């Protein structure tokens, strides 16, 4: 009985995680080394060349690079890490969300 309950919890958790991944339309990345417009320009150019990319937003103040994905498509974390390394920057974290790029563009930068 105990095994059934544990299995059910694990299955529900996995289902939840996979449906979140499938539903994610945006990848938000914290990137190190973002200090100038040319940095943003290079990253934007590189990510826009990806087939799964619908739009790109870069915020220097927030150290944020966000990619809006085309419906049903994704870019793996490993591929994102490689793309950013090839652009000369360091990928710190990735997070898949449903945030619209318009919302991210409109969000104020945090005071540091």
């Amino acid at each position, binding site marked *: 009985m105990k095994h059934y309950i544990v299995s059910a919890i694990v299955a529900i958790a996995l289902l939840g995680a996979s449906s979140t991944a499938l539903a994610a339309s945006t990848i938000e990345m914290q990137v190190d080394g973002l200090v*100038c*417009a040319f940095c943003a320009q290079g990253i934007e*150019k590189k990510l826009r060349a990806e087939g799964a990319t619908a739009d790109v937003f870069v915020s*220097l103040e927030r150290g944020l690079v966000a990619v809006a994905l085309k419906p049903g498509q994704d870019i793996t974390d490993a591929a994102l890490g490689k793309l950013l390394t090839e652009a*000369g920057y360091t990928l710190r974290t990735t997070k898949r969300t449903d945030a619209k790029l318009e919302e991210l563009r409109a969000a104020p930068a945090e005071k540091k």
Partner: protein
Amino acid sequence: MRNYIALLALSCATPAAAKPIAFQNGVTMMAEYGAGTMLETQAFYAPQYWYSVGAGYLRLEDEDRTFTRDIPYARANLLVKRWNTPGAQANVFAYGGLGAARGSDFEGTELATNAGLQFDAESLRWYGSAKVDWQRSDEFDHRIDTAQLGIAPYKHDYNKLATWVVLQGRHYTGGLYDGIEAAVLLRFFRGPLWVEAGVTNDGYPQAMVMFNY
């Protein structure tokens, strides 16, 4: 491979710039007017983020207006090392190339070598750089050392105008200028365009424009 190219770049020998490599598959075009002593234009293409190749033209004139150098050249730039942190970046660049020099105080055209090293570090609020450029031929030997410190009065994002106040010190050898030439500069950039202008302690203008695409 990168170390080998760095050694190759240094074994050749060149002049000044902001960052000689903007981004992968990017073209950098730059023009700088340095207080009547230096005029330089450059265009570079970067196949990778860590190196670029291109050409430039350098005109040097000493402060007493007794001689000039005109040097068209080809040059390679290498990003030797980059440090990325959450709010800052630092770089070491090396560059070198070959040119054909003409001068008002010697006959004909001389093979000229150029080489340089640059260290820079910046965040969205502060900036510092140190750079050494050499220009050599059988007829002359000039070195131009440049140090800059910059402060931005506000943090700038990608789509906003960035404003910097920059203090510069420059030292020339080979009879170009005696002592240290100081300058105060205002630097603006937004998107692909960078514009900088200021004045030296002798009252001469200094300006630079750079465009990346």
